[in-house]
């Protein structure tokens, strides 16, 4: 217990201890080649199907490898444990696993590891927050009914053939389904997870390039390189210490003082100085996040027949100036409803939105006039005031709209106290005007940017947009086996959004980070999580 002895020593030597810096933190004896990185306390227990935010996601990225993994550079879904995933009809899949994969406790990764994990994640009794990711598997509604208790423990669509093979039957055609399998909810789990769940959550065991050394909840999680890792993306450093910071400003200060190696969230207040402070050790690269202003289509003041007004508002926003002045270019003005991380092949198309996303005050004014003007002569944009400093940019957007329309009172921000309250109002369809919305992709597919958000009745269709033609095109694209054809059909659907404008694309969000001169080869993956295993320590 190095930390404890250090503390005791400190008690006796308070007076001369001001300059002592050898205690605690990253200075431990086994720290050769270990990178210290900033972290936030994960919101949920570290179960794969229960982790839906980036802090827990960081750990899972180090701790697990699934059937597929998204290439940190290209975002393409590549086979890892899967040898092949075959289908003839885009609905019945046969998954074959590679040899030689084990969990760090020695247990083999078999088809059962996957099937059991997925059934656990889907079962309503386990209250996993990512349960809906299994909704395309046949039999999901039995283990996860909308109402009442489950009538089955396992999904009928999952069948183990042997140790290396299992079949999956989906309840609809979904040609890009295999590409969704890189998401952390689909990771395999060792039997220890089910037999001694409490112990597993205390110290998770996975099959990724790192193992959990110690986990002090709320303080520090020490991940160490797993020497026997069978994959070819093994850790190039001795380990990662994820340290919980109370505030990203403090983490940044620690980086400046040489007390921390990696921050992956540069505080907004430091964006102006970060180039001067860190030089080329500052990372600013696109992530799969798009910010929009969504309209409550269920509200007659904004719904059907108001297309021109919605388009006009979009054209009244000066995206270039706001991304430059407020975000210091850590956002890029959006010209479609996806993200540049998809790349052109994956469905990102610059300029798909056309004129409707170009700043054009004259046209904006005209369109809004033709559409019957703003309902009641003014509008509000709702946002949550507790986190994320949304006020600044919402005010800037309103300012931009007011200038374009030549009316100082046309638009004001409408803060909602807490994020939970904000979300509750949206889910309860109580929004009376447009509101801010952000979407972080689950997997780098164009489908993930369109279907969950704009398909009739879809899970995250906050504005309750519904368009028969859009739905039809999405269905067609999902059934299409040819990937490039599927992508172009999705883009046809996306063009409907450009004419209907149920949500105004604002900007693509970048991931940002900075690192010390002790480490190199630091990049962020498309989910804006650092690619920890590639980091080298000098």
């Amino acid at each position, binding site marked *: 217990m190095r*930390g404890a002895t*250090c*503390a005791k020593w*400190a*008690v006796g*030597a*308070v007076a001369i*201890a*001001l*300059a002592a*810096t050898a*205690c*605690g*933190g990253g200075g431990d004896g086994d720290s050769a080649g270990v990178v210290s990185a900033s972290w936030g*306390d*994960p*919101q*949920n*227990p570290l179960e794969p199907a229960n982790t*839906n935010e980036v802090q827990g996601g960081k750990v899972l990225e180090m701790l697990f490898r699934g059937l597929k993994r998204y290439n940190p550079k290209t975002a393409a879904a590549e086979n890892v444990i899967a040898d092949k995933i075959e289908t003839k009809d885009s609905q019945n899949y046969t998954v074959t696993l590679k040899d030689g994969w084990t969990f760090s406790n020695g247990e083999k990764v078999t088809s059962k590891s996957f099937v059991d994990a997925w059934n656990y994640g889907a079962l*309503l009794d386990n*209250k*996993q*927050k990512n*349960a*809906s990711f299994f909704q395309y598997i046949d039999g999901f509604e039995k283990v*996860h*009914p*909308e*109402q009442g208790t489950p009538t089955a423990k396992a999904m009928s669509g999952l069948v183990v053939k042997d140790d290396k093979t299992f079949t999956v039957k989906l309840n609809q055609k979904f040609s890009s389904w295999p590409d969704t399998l890189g998401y952390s909810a689909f990771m395999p789990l060792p039997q220890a997870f089910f037999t001694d769940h409490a112990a597993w959550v205390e110290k998770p065991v996975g099959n990724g390039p790192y193992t959990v050394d110690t986990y002090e*909840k*709320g*303080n*520090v999680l020490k991940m160490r390189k797993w020497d026997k890792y069978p994959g070819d993306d093994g850790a190039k450093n001795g380990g990662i210490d994820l340290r*919980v*910071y*109370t*505030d990203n*400003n*403090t*983490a940044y*200060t*620690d980086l*400046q*003082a040489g*007390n921390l190696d990696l921050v992956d969230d540069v505080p907004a207040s430091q964006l102006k100085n970060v180039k001067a402070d860190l030089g080329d050790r500052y990372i600013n690269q696109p992530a799969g996040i798009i910010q929009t202003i969504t309209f409550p289509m269920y509200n007659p003041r904004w719904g059907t027949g108001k297309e021109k007004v919605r388009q006009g508002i979009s054209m009244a926003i000066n995206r270039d100036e706001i991304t430059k002045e407020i975000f210091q270019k850590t956002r890029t003005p959006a010209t479609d409803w996806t993200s540049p991380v998809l790349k052109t092949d994956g469905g990102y198309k610059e300029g798909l939105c056309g004129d409707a996303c170009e700043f054009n005050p004259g046209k904006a004014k005209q369109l809004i006039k033709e559409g019957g003007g703003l309902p009641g002569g003014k509008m509000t944009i709702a946002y949550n005031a507790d986190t994320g400093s949304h006020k600044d940019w919402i005010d800037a957007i309103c300012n931009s709209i007011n200038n374009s329309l030549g009316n100082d009172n046309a638009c004001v921000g409408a803060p909602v*106290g*807490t*994020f*939970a*309250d904000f*979300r*509750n109002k*949206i*889910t309860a369809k109580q929004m009376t005007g447009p509101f801010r*919305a*952000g979407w972080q992709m689950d997997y780098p597919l164009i489908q993930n940017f369109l279907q969950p958000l704009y398909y009739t009745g879809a*899970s*995250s*269709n906050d504005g309750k947009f519904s368009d028969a033609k859009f739905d039809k095109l999405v269905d067609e694209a999902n059934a299409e086996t040819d990937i490039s054809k599927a992508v172009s059909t999705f883009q046809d659907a996306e063009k409907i959004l450009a004419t209907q404008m149920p949500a105004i694309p604002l900007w693509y969000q970048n991931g940002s980070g900075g690192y010390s001169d002790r480490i190199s080869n630091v990049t962020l993956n498309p989910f804006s999580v650092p690619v920890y295993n590639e980091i080298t320590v000098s």
Partner: protein
Amino acid sequence: MGRYVIRRLLQMIPVFIGSTFLIFFMVYALGDPVAALFGDKAPDPATVQRIRRDLYLDQPLWKQYLHYMGQIFQGNFGTAFNGQPVTELMASAFPITLRLTLVAIVIEMIVGIVLGVFSGLRRGRSVDTSVLVFTLVVVSIPTFVSGYLLQFLFGVQWNWVKPSVSSEAPLDELLLPGVALALVSLAYVTRLTRTSIAENARADYVRTAIAKGLPRHRVITRHLLRNSLIPVVTFIGTDIGALMGGAIVTERIFNIHGVGFQLYQGILRQNSPTVVGFVTILVLIFLVANLLVDLLYAVLDPRIRYA
């Protein structure tokens, strides 16, 4: 004395119940926390229903409160959203904050009283004036400015200390945050001591003591200081509670995983078991600290007796 203590302890019960109910009610009024667990995504209704039932959120407020209080008396403070029992959070957070508070109290007592005595005894002279100006400056700078400033100067610019506190939070690392936390109270302690000393220095008993030929340091420490410290002790006593609960800003700046951090996170995530549990303990600490202050009066001032 014993009866007085018992009476005071009994008086704490309604205060305790009232304050926990108020806190419970206020956290509840923030709205339903479950939706926020799903981020920007619309939550799936079946899972939400289960989580709400598990957290007792589907019951009316008064039932929730009774259930919660029932659990508390069995030593169960509930579970945070990440699956950790709140008692575990308390066990890690309270010792750290307590240490930070003690560091701050010691600093504010030593520095504050010494400065106060000096300026009180030299009323109107240059020492007095400069101490007054110093305290005025300190009082008018908010903690988040002085905290960041100290952190930047000592941690980054001069590199004397680590700008953040590690998870074990040893005493030496808490010195700088302790100073930041103590600064404002220190100024008040200085001013209180100064006024009190200046007033009592002309009191009859001091003149008597001097006339009896007692040495100066004995007059000051045994007679003058003992009587002058009563208002200071009151202030420090109430300050313990305020410092423990009010260290949120300091704890955030210096990355101290104490009570303030847990409270901040609990409020942000609307995790009522964390918030109510921590505040309940803080209320208890405040009540006990007040009782101790009242008892200290009797020690300091022989004229005060408790029946």
